[in-house]
């Protein structure tokens, strides 16, 4: 098989970083979600995202050499390519969390659909597999969206997070997000820099692995 182009590997890695970091942020709700059923459901979605991250990291590692875990946990904070959108710590603000969840799943549906058409057969296959699980995530996001729509806090959170959400997608995919989200185009918060809380998140996320470097767990 011909090696996938570096830009494609970079895109997969950025996607993996998004899923890993969002999975982490969402998992901060475990145990403190607004009610028990939602706690279980949202924790499961967080694990779903981390599962997707794992598959994407392994794909990127396969193209680059090395292992998925090394890509996920052994890089310096500056090497992560995740969008600032997924890094924001929103725990304790359920309205903002649901707003991000809905915006992210909407953006993700565009990204996954594009990857399903990828020339890189393994990526296309993985995207199709992810889409089946994402359908559940989207349903969950949509029911919450409908429940909170019109709520002042929720609408304010959507407006505040909107420029961040646009930054998740490649430029040519943003028009579609504008359509699906029903919002006006704005200047996106692009990938490439990290929010203030990211260093602390990275520290926590890699803590156990760094405690015994090179160990087989």
């Amino acid at each position, binding site marked *: 098989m011909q090696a996938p182009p570096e830009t494609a590997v970079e895109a997969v890695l950025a996607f993996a970083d998004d899923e890993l970091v969002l999975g982490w942020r969402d998992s901060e709700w475990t145990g403190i979600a607004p009610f028990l059923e939602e706690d*279980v459901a949202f924790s499961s979605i967080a694990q779903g995202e981390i599962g997707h991250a794992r598959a994407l990291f392994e794909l990127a590692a396969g193209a680059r050499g090395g292992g998925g875990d090394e890509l996920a946990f052994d890089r310096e904070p500056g090497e992560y390519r995740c969008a600032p959108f997924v890094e924001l710590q929103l725990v304790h603000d359920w309205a903002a969390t649901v707003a991000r969840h809905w915006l992210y799943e909407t953006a993700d549906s565009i990204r996954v659909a594009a990857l399903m058409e990828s020339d890189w057969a393994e990526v296309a296959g993985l995207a199709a597999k992810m889409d089946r699980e994402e359908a559940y995530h989207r349903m969950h996001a949509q*029911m919450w969206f409908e429940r909170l729509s019109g709520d002042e806090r929720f609408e304010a959170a959507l407006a505040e997070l909107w420029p961040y959400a646009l930054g998740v997608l490649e430029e040519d995919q943003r028009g579609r997000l504008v359509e699906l989200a029903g919002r006006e185009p704005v200047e996106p918060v692009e990938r490439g820099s990290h929010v203030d809380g990211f260093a602390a998140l990275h520290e926590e996320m890699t803590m156990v692995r760094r405690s015994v470097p090179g160990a087989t767990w």
Partner: protein
Amino acid sequence: MIWEVFRQEREGQPFQHGGSLEAPNLEFAEAYAVEFYGRRAESVALWVVPRDAVREIEDPYVADVFDRDYRRVDGYSLKLKLKEARDRAGTA
């Protein structure tokens, strides 16, 4: 609002009570039911029923006023009768 969830493990099998959950409406109830009883391929079908729709019968015990032991099979040794029948038929 409380919802009762019934699950079917395999096609053709009876639905059994899986548990109950709290959800503000049917849509949420469905999503949570799928989350709790459908994500590990442990069910092929699910029913969600608002608890209010379930009628609990207050006194389910139907008293046996007369002695009708003969209606029960537990005093009757089927094993022995069966053995005798088999011996007669030569199929033992």
